Each structure stands twice: as structure tokens, then as C-alpha cells.
């Protein structure tokens, strides 16, 4: 550099035109360097920002698959199951069976556990008030059920009144709140999913600008300096290409994984859960019809409504679940569930026919019976098919979401490092040319 400065006075003598050209080229090179640095910084910034957005969305999707997540669907299901189980247990009379008692206790324990996790996960989100309603109502509900059980054991009809109140609290307050939390969670997952699989348009635009600028710079330099290759700009171009390839391939892999998580995971799980919850409510209605002895009244109307809704048949919950789950890990069980609904309905009609013909005791026996040809047993078959399918698809969801998130690992840091290499390459390459004009 100092040597260049020493020979400087000689230069203007060589050629006036040369001086002008040299001055213009020097300025142009400086402008070019500035432009390249700006575009490189822009690329690094925009690419890292897109990756950060995708990574946080990916983390949200992944979090939804974690055991300790805001899993409203499990809250909803365990509460519905508690309601159905307690109603069935009541049909057994003062001394309910041990398996039903354990099932009820398991449901309540799970609901409490999930509620706590969900409340921790929900933070200040709009699901908060609904979760608070559930947290406040759960001990009230269990209190009412225990009072019902005690009175029932004493042989008092007051027990049935407490059960009615418990079931009323469950159906009028708790299940709607659980449903709202569930809807909220689904909307959140869908939004995160969309964000995680979205195309990073801004990054693409900057990548194109950077590519054009780098190519143009190299062509211009090649013509100007008669050197075909500028090593600095070549390094910058290669680093840029590498970061683009990495970005595109990682986002593609993540997108494929998240699509698979949705199509073979969360979507079938949601469809299956809808069907399962409808089935549980219909099961509770069957028991409540017998407990209230009101014949084919509101509870039975509910059952008929739910049966139509549940299917199988065009657009029904079970058929939708079967179609959505087709090809997923739970596909076989989902198809089995669609098959096991009809036998249950058939037994239910037998229960209603017996009750309608005055054979109440036989109707109750058929309703609570756990054999394969009895209502309790055939319902359990349907329920276990659905929950089995859900568990399988939940596992697919978890592994695909994990893989999707894994594909983005290190990408943000990588993009930043590569864009720094680009900047260094540009500076190196251009400053060598600049030096020639000193």
C-alpha cells in the first residue's frame, strides 16, 4: 500500500484518459462493494429471519406432540369418559363394579393432570378463562359424584339427584369449556403448521437479487480486468449457493415432514377424537335413559342424533375419520372402528326394545354387560378401536414433527455464518481490485 502511494505521482503522467478511467472504475468498484455487502447482509438477515420464524412454528407444532402439552383433546375425552363411566356405574346399583370405579378415577386423575399441564402451557392465551372454569369445576364435579355415591350406598334416591346435578355440571359447563379449549388448540396448531410449511418468499427474492448482483459483478470485473475468475467473489458465490441449497432443502424436508405430521398425524387424530367423544356421549345417553327411566325421551333423542352424526355413512364422523386416517398408522383401527359402530347400535336397539317392552332389568343387564354381544362390551370395542387408532397416529405425528423440527437444526446459525463468509469473500475480492487503482 505504501509502495503504491510512493509511485502515485507518476501515474497521472501516463495517460489523462487512464486517470479518468481509473478514477471512475475505482468509484464503481467501491459502489459495487457496498452493494454486494448490503445484499449479502440482506440475504443473511432475511434468510435467518425466515428460518427463525419456521423454527419457532416448528417448535410450536412439535410442542403440540409432547406429552406435557396443552392437550385439550385428552381433557375433553377424559371428562366425557368420566361422565359416561359414572352413569354406567350407577346402573349397577349401590355397589358399582371395581373396573368402572377405577376407570372413573383414572379419568379424573388424567383430566386433573392434563389440566395442570394445559394451564401451564396456555400462559396468557385466550384458552386461559376456559381452563380456569375447568379447574374450578372439576373438584365441584367430583364432590357431587362422591356425594351421589355415598347416598346411593345408603340406598337413598337422593344419590340419583346428586348424579343428575354432577352430570348437569359436566354437560352444561365443563364439556363446553373443554370443547372451547380444544377448538382453540386446534386453531393454534393449524396456524403453526401453516407457518412451518410456508414458502419463504422474501428470502427467495433476496436470493435472486444477490445471485444477479454477484454474477453481474463477476462478468463486469472479468471484462474490466481481463481476469476470468475473481477468487473472492467466487467464494462468496459458492457460500451463497451453499446457504440457498441448505435453506431450500431443509425447508423442503421440514415441509414434507410437517405435511406428513398433519395428514397422517394431527388431522386423523382430530377426526378420530371427534368420533370418540360423540361415541362417549352417546354411551352416557344410553345409561342416562335407563337411569332416568323416562323412556325414549331427551337422552334417547340425543343418542339417535349422535348415532346419525357418528355414522358410518356419507360425511359422518366415523367415515370422515376412516378416510382421513387411511394410509396412516392408525388407518386399520380407524376402519375397524367404522365397522364396530353398527353392532353397538344393534345392541342399543335391543336395549331400547327390552326397556320399551317393560323388561327393565333385562335392558339394564344388556346395557351394562361387558360381553361382545352386549352394549357395554360392544361400546368398549368401538372405543378401544378409536383410542388405539388415535394413539398410533399420535405417535406418527410426534415422530414426523420431531423430524421436521430436526431438519431445521443449525440452519439459522449456518445461514448467518455463510452470509458472513459471503461478505468476507466480496470484500476480499473487490479490495484486491481496488488496490490496483491506488
Amino acid at each position, binding site marked *: 500500500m505504501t509502495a503504491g502511494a510512493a509511485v502515485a505521482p507518476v501515474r497521472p503522467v501516463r495517460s489523462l484518459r487512464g486517470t479518468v478511467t481509473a478514477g471512475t472504475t475505482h468509484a464503481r468498484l467501491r459502489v459495487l462493494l457496498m452493494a454486494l455487502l448490503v445484499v449479502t447482509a440482506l440475504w443473511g438477515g432475511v434468510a435467518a429471519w425466515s428460518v427463525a420464524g419456521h423454527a419457532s412454528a416448528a417448535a410450536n407444532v412439535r410442542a403440540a406432540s409432547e406429552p406435557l402439552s396443552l392437550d385439550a383433546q385428552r381433557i375433553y375425552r377424559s371428562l366425557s369418559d368420566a361422565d359416561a363411566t359414572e352413569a354406567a356405574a350407577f346402573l349397577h346399583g349401590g355397589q358399582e363394579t371395581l373396573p368402572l370405579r377405577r376407570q372413573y378415577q383414572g379419568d379424573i386423575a388424567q383430566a386433573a393432570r392434563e389440566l395442570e399441564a394445559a394451564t401451564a402451557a396456555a*400462559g*396468557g392465551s385466550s384458552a386461559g378463562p376456559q381452563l380456569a372454569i375447568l379447574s374450578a369445576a372439576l373438584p365441584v364435579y367430583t364432590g357431587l359424584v362422591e356425594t351421589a355415591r355415598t347416598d346411593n350406598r*345408603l340406598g337413598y334416591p337422593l344419590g340419583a339427584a346428586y348424579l343428575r346435578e354432577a352430570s348437569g355440571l359436566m354437560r352444561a359447563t365443563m364439556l363446553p369449556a373443554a370443547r372451547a379449549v380444544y377448538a382453540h388448540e386446534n386453531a393454534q396448531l393449524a396456524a403453526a403448521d401453516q407457518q412451518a410449511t410456508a414458502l419463504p418468499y422474501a428470502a427467495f427474492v433476496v436470493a435472486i437479487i444477490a445471485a444477479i448482483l454477484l454474477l453481474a459483478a463477476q462478468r463486469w470485473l472479468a471484462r474490466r480486468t481481463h481476469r476470468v475468475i475473481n477468487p473472492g467473489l467466487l467464494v462468496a458465490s459458492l457460500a451463497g449457493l451453499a446457504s440457498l441449497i441448505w435453506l431450500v432443502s431443509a425447508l423442503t424436508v421440514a415441509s414434507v415432514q410437517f405435511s406428513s405430521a398433519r395428514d397422517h398425524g394431527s388431522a386423523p387424530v382430530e377426526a378420530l377424537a371427534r368420533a370418540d367423544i360423540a361415541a362417549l356421549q352417546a354411551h352416557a345417553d344410553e345409561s342416562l335413559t335407563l337411569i332416568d327411566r323416562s323412556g325414549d325421551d331427551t337422552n334417547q333423542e340425543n343418542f339417535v342424533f349422535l348415532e346419525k352424526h357418528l355414522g358410518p355413512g356419507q360425511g359422518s364422523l366415523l367415515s370422515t375419520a376412516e378416510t382421513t386416517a387411511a394410509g396412516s398408522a392408525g388407518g386399520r383401527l380407524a376402519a375397524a372402528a367404522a365397522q364396530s359402530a353398527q353392532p353397538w347400535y344393534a345392541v342399543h336397539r335391543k336395549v331400547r326394545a327390552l326397556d320399551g317392552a317393560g323388561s*327393565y332389568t333385562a335392558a339394564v343387564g344388556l346395557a351394562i354387560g361387558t360381553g361382545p354381544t352386549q352394549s357395554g362390551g360392544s361400546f368398549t370395542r368401538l372405543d378401544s378401536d378409536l383410542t388405539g387408532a388415535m394413539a398410533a397416529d399420535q405417535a406418527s405425528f410426534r415422530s414426523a414433527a420431531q423430524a421436521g423440527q430436526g431438519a431445521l437444526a443449525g440452519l439459522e446459525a449456518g445461514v448467518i455464518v455463510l452470509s458472513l463468509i459471503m461478505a468476507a469473500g466480496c470484500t476480499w475480492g473487490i479490495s484486491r481490485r481496488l488496490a490496483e487503482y491506488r
Partner: protein
Amino acid sequence: MGNLTTASGVPVRPRQRLSRTAVASVATAAVLSWLATPVQATSAGGAQVVTSAHAAHVTARDGSAAATQCDPYASLQPPPGPPTVTPGSFMATVRARGYLIAGVDQNSYRLEYLNPRDGQIEGFDIDMLHAIAAAIFGDPSKIKYVATTNAQREPFVESGRVDIVAHTMTITCARLQDVDFSTVYFDAGQQILVEDGSPIHGVQDIAQRRVCAAPGSTSLARLSQYHAIQVPAQSYTDCLVLLQQGQVDAISTDNSILEGLAAQDPYARIVGTTFSDEPYGLAISKQHPDFVRFVNAVLAQMRADGQWAASYESWLGSPVPPPPSVRYQG
């Protein structure tokens, strides 16, 4: 949207605390407001607190000119001899069907209630039905029970959905315009049930107090005369739930039902004197006078052979009073 706050994950701490307090109060309010709602309002989606205008209408109907001129104790004369199923009669239709369809309550302890131990509906009222089934089929168990609310009793009889209603049902002149009744099988009277330590000592104290009774009952209609705040509940056990939870101050209905409630709660007691006459009858459609006469014959036999007294003693205890007086008319 709220999901954005969790996605970006930077809620400001004081605000979150504020929102948690808000959330907690919303939740408490929701549960409290639910608890304050009468049981049937949520489970059956049914009646709200009865307005005084409606109650006044019921009283007016009770006290109408046609109504005051009837004799609730009078019923149709049975044919002489033991009850018999004559060919072509309604009883023959019932026998061909194979079972009697009876509208009952399953919540009135000892009168008619579902015994959790064996899942059977039993009680004093149910014994009347067993005797009728025995007279028709030779088998007292040939009965299909349909649980009815108080308000469903007349409509179910009129529509033929049930053959007979045995549901602690007071014979009133207003009801006699819609359905027929058997002779009186039980004499009850309205009283008041409170928890220990209540300032209510009788009907004179119930003004402006929350008092529970079943909609469609004579008890609820009468409460308006005493300016009580009426809280309807689907059944009287639902009323007892409300009383135990402090949502009502008292329950008022027939002493027979109140005795059954008091038997389920050692802290509940009946106060004051009887302030109405509630003669119970079995309700039967006006289409079937032959069945009314048949049932009256069964009841006459029960009074005569001691079945009535035996049933009374086994469900309601001793001393057993003499059976209610009987008058036939037409």
C-alpha cells in the same frame, strides 16, 4: 389472536398476573352462577323461577267455579264382587299387551323410589300398582314403569302414553277436568322441611324465602299464597340437593314426601302444622271409566283384606291410621 402471544412468547409479567386474576374471577363466577341455577334448569333445560303471575293463574284455575263444586273424594262405583277382567274392557287390552304401563316418580323415598340396591322401583304407591297388576295378570310384577315429572302426569295419562299414574298425585277439581282418579288411597297434607337451625318454624315464616317445590305440583301453586320465592326443581330429591347446598331455605310439599326426604338427611326436619289437604289418587284417562271402576275394586279389596294396612306399615311405619274414607258417585 391469543395464539400469537404464545407463539412470540413475550407476555409482560404484570399483565399476565392481572389476566390470571381476571381468569380466576371469571371461572369462579361461572361455577357459582351454575351452582346457583336450579338443578332442572340445566339438566332438563326447563322452567325458570315461576313468576307470580303464572302462579296466580294456577290458583285461579284451582279456585274456579267448576272446580270448587267437585268432591275430590268421590270416584266411580266399582261393580260388585272381586275385580274381574271383562272381555272387551280396557283391562283385557292391557292383559293382551302383557304388562301395565305406569307413570311413577322414582325419587320419593318410601312412596315410590328406585332402590339402588336392587335397581327396583318400590314403595307404598308402587304396592297399589302391584295389586292392580296382580288382579289383571295374576302376577304383581307385570309393570313397565315410566318415570314422569310432576308436570308430565296429566299429559301422559291424557295421551295414553301410560295406563295409570301413581305419583303422589293430589286429586284436585282442576285435575278432574282433564283426567279421572281412583278413590283416595292416601291422605297427605302440605308442610315445610328445613335444615336444623333454620329461622323458619312454619308456613308463616316463608314469605320472601327461597322455597323449593316441583313444577306442576299443587305444592308450588300454593306457595304463592304465602309470598315465598318459588324455586322449582324437577323432583323433590333435587330440592333436597338444593337445600343441602344452601341454595334454598326450605322445601314445601306433602308431608309424606317430606318424611322420605328427612329420612335421607339427619339434619332436615319438618316444621309447622299441615296447611292443606292432599288426598292422593291414581290418575286414569277419562277414556277408560271401566278401568277406574276396576282399580277402585282393587283398592276396596286392599282396604278390606288388610293389604293396605300391611303396606302402610312396611313402608311408612306404625301406627297405621285407618284407610282414607271413600265415596262413590256415578
